[in-house]
């Protein structure tokens, strides 16, 4: 019996999915292996600059974590400004937020009783 994840709106079978994944990987590999093997490891091809320029140090050309998603963060600057303002790191604010949320929850629960 194939294992199935029944969700009420349908089902999902991980093993079947895996079988198809393997099948498509094989097909992909067949296509890949018929390609032209022009890449040669021990030749000039591996150098970053064929013109002979000096290669900059690895630390300089590395893509840093804070550079990734720069555009996304820039676009949502206003949103993040608010979020950063909330996350003060002040232990008293932790408790004040608790008091605030607790009051709202109490109000919602008691108010409707």
């Amino acid at each position, binding site marked *: 019996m194939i*294992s*199935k*994840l*029944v*969700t*009420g*709106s*349908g089902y*999902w079978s*991980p*093993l079947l*999915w*895996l079988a198809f*994944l393997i099948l498509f990987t094989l097909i992909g590999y067949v296509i890949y292996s018929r390609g032209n093997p022009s890449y040669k490891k021990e030749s000039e091809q591996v150098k970053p600059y064929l013109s002979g320029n000096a290669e900059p*140090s*690895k*630390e300089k*050309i*590395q*893509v*840093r*974590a*804070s550079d*990734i*998603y720069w555009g*996304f*963060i820039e676009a*949502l600057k206003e*949103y*993040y400004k608010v*979020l950063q303002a*909330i*996350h003060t*790191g002040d*232990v008293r*604010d*932790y*408790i004040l*937020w*608790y008091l605030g*949320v*607790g009051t709202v*929850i*109490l109000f*919602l*629960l*008691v108010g*409707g*009783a």
Partner: protein
Amino acid sequence: MIEHLPALIIAIPLFGAFIAPLFKKKQSIAAVWAILITAITVILSLMLMYQVRLHGIIVYVFGADKPTIVLPSGYKVPIRIMFEIDGIGAFMAISATLMSFVGALYSYSHVKAESGLEKYYALLLLLEVGILGMVLTGDLFNLFVFLEIAGIAGSALVGFRNYRGEASEAGIKYLIVSAVASLMVLFAIGILYGEYGNLNLAYISRQVSLSTLDMIAFGLLFASFAMKCGSVPMHYWVPDAYTEVPAGINPVLLVSTYASLYALFRVSFTLFANVSISLERVGWIMSVLGVLTMFIGVTMALVQKDVKRLMSYHAISQTGYMLLGVGVGLTVLHNSDALAEFGRTAMAGGIFHIINHIIYKSLLLMTAGALFYVTGTRNLNEMGGLARKMPITTLCFIVGAAAISGLPPFNGFASKFLIYESSYRLNPLLAVFAMVTSILTLASFVKVFASAFLGPPLEKFENVREVPRPMIVAMVILALLCILFGLFPDVVLNKIVYPAVDALINVAQYQSWGGLA
């Protein structure tokens, strides 16, 4: 012996915790001792689950044979401390013991260079005791005591690296938050005791009404446990604590957070079952908190530079899925058609997500710990090109990242799929937020992967080697569990998750343990 299982599962780690400080001279023996004790508790918890599936709810009374024995003066209410173990309690016990074992195994080499390890392992075992007590007890005051034990042991472990000021800062923040939360829990327990003259969960849950005092107690319990499980906007302590704690404790601390989540569910489903009938909005509060938690958690994670802090924000955001799944179930709890159609599935998704999340988030935090172990920094900007040096860690990280982003066929997908497919029936917007969160999760893990593991090999990491074997073993165990749970989700669901869900839904069963009215 088998009938004393509930007492043993608390007593053995407690015994272990008090023996551990004796190994002051040979600290590696303390580590082996902790691994041994936690391994025994794993077996005990599996036996416990087996017993619960076989016999239904187990009621264990301390100091008497039967729960129905009353005082000689004829005062006919349950006064003894009792453990009441049903499906979800056993489920949480399995998660707790498994993660303590993996954490102890990982700690063996991760914290080897530190001093005072005998106290470290004693606290680890105490934390496990606290969690197990919280999830197994059937007594409100007992719940408070174990909550405090877990809180104290947890914050002492957060501040374990006392040569770092930040560790103490995180420790006191966690301790203040958990002290305030548990005091308010005690206050609510006092209110309930004053009204009903009892502390037994099952006994009170029969009497609870819609009176204002009851609702105040409910609100206090709800807000306090919501803060302890790190739901937005009371989540600020989570990244601090998870970042500063040694990576070997992360799995256990994660479970202790979810023990509070369990208490939240227990309070809403069992203790206030009579009330929740007429209060659909409890479920809505939970679902909305869940969506907020998910979204704010993940957007904050996206901008973090500290690898463990990034993952801690993901821990917050994943808690949202659990709140959402179970909240959807709570909303339709007394609408039996809707419950059968999607409510039960949503709850199964939420509860399945607890164990899945514990597994893959521990895995990810451990890989972060491994990065810290070899590079000495947690700043992602200073890492790079580590994939070639640490192939197994990289593989484990890929498995964990795929699981947390909900990519098939890993376990995260299975539970998230259940939540998507059921929460849209309540309100499509809920499912949309859940999916967007998943995509953003994937995005931020691509960031971690690209900056820490990919890229050109840096000169300063020339001599980096793969982490020691116990750490590898702990990570590989969790990675394998991720894959297994993803490939055979139906087995896990039927064996442990659906019993837990039915235990939550079926309140009458929980209340009917003895002959007492």
